[in-house]
């Protein structure tokens, strides 16, 4: 059966050239980068080369890149690391209601330990209002964290504006750029950000490796203790093959990003418009234009998300939903609810995220199958009253 993967926001396949670059570092290049001998120094050379590639992709200096095990770790490191480094100055953090759980949960953790956190609301398209950021700042504010683009609805936030506000008040600014680095141009000096979270497997690198960009001079407490790796900021023997793969993925992204962005945007809009043309009672979630090139998120009213995913999977299409039924906590997506969607619409959401392997034929196939599935499920939905507009 035909299999079409449309869940690139969850993870991407490792690029063959990335894998090729990694392989020698499992075998011949197995040395510990902390060792003095040639085995160790070769491995150290490899990670430093990768560090330069990561830095180059975001316009940073290589000594401002700290490798982590994931984007989630980078977020945890940024939030907790700055909070603990600056708690003597104040205990207030500003973030948004639509952040990834890797930001929200560390904030909640800190709230239990005496910090105050403001979770800014967003408008119906998922945009944060920079004016609201300004209003939320107090003398106690030590950190502002706003994601570059949302992983569920694809809305791209005005982080340049928000970072400027943070800079004016000399408040540390972090952005979770896991969904944008490797896909859209990100330049730390142009954006004036202090901390940036990155994950390799979101742009054809391997899983298990990420990075936190830390602007020189930013006060932050180390994430792990027990070694001098990563300039003492993140103890633990580095994942050499993973880091080499990460570097290669950055190098490839830098070359291919521009063209790929245009190609994906065309396919994305074909998919969105095709769905809106073929199915009634559909809502596009997220900003119509200020959105990730590969993100489609829609609510297909009266149909529950997991039942859609199962049916799509049966015809070979892999997608994702914000419905409670598909989550292990049985709660609807906090992002969709933050947009002001009623629970029914959050449960009816479907996310299709495109990538390098996606073709126009794949989009045609989805546009052929999805209306049939929605029709079948609506016929058994007690919420659907045909003829009603």
């Amino acid at each position, binding site marked *: *059966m035909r299999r079409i993967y449309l869940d690139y926001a969850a993870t991407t396949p490792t690029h063959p050239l990335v894998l090729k670059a990694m392989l020698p570092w499992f075998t011949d290049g197995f040395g510990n980068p902390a060792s003095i001998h040639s085995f160790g120094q070769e491995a150290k050379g490899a990670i430093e080369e990768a560090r330069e590639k990561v830095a180059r992709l975001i316009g940073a200096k290589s000594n401002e890149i700290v490798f982590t095990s994931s984007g989630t770790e980078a977020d945890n490191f940024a939030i907790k690391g700055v909070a603990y480094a600056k708690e003597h100055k104040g205990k207030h953090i500003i973030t948004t209601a639509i952040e990834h759980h890797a930001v929200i949960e560390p904030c909640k953790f800190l709230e239990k330990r005496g910090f105050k956190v403001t979770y800014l609301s967003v408008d119906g398209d998922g945009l944060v209002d920079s004016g609201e950021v300004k209003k939320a700042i107090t003398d106690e504010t030590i950190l502002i964290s706003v994601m570059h683009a949302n992983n569920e609805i694809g809305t791209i936030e005005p982080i340049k504006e928000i970072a400027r506000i943070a800079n004016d008040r000399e408040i540390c600014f972090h952005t979770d750029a896991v969904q944008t680095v490797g896909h859209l141009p990100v330049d730390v000096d142009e954006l004036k950000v202090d901390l940036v979270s990155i994950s390799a497997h979101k742009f054809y690198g391997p899983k298990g490796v990420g990075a936190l960009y830390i602007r020189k001079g930013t006060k932050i407490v180390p994430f792990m203790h027990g070694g001098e790796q990563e300039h003492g900021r993140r103890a633990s023997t580095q994942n050499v093959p993973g880091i080499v793969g990460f570097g290669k993925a950055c190098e490839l992204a830098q070359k291919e990003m521009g063209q790929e962005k245009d190609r994906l945007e065309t396919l994305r809009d074909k998919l969105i418009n095709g769905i809106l043309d073929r199915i009634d009672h559909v809502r596009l979630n997220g900003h119509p234009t200020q959105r990730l090139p590969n993100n489609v998120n829609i609510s297909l009213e*009266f*149909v*529950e*998300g*997991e*039942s859609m995913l*199962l049916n799509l*999977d*049966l015809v070979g299409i892999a997608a994702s939903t914000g*419905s*409670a*039924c*598909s989550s*292990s906590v*049985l709660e*609807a997506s906090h992002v969709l609810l933050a947009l002001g969607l*009623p*629970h*029914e619409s959050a*449960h009816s959401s479907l996310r299709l995220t495109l990538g390098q392997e996606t073709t126009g034929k794949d989009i045609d196939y989805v546009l052929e199958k999805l209306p049939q599935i929605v029709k079948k499920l609506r*016929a*058994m*939905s*007690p*919420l659907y009253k045909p003829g009603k507009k």
Partner: protein
Amino acid sequence: MKSRKDLWSLYSEKVMEHFQNPRNVGEIESPDGIGHAGNPVCGDIMELYIKVKDDIIIDAKFKTFGCGAAIATSSMLTEMVKGKTIEEALKVSNKTVAEALDGLPPIKMHCSVLAEEALGLAIEDYLAKSKRK
């Protein structure tokens, strides 16, 4: 690559079979009992219709907004109660429906509770209506 069946581990084959070919979908015109269960917050809503003759459920139909487990349990429940007396039907629990489907993942057991609730409410509705007659 493994076959599809091996890959699919969330639900049993029986659940998937009922999910793909649900029995008794629809509404009954002038039913003897209706049960509405669930709410939009949790994401599962079920409507169950029953037709009763001489104390026996002669027909049952459903409409469900919900996940695979909710649809499969709705389908299985309607199959199980058809032909049963009201007293027998009242003994059909969420556990017996889940067992008939070769089990549900623990996190999905609440979906089978929905079907049991809808059945209880439909029978309650039928009993209230028949008393009034």
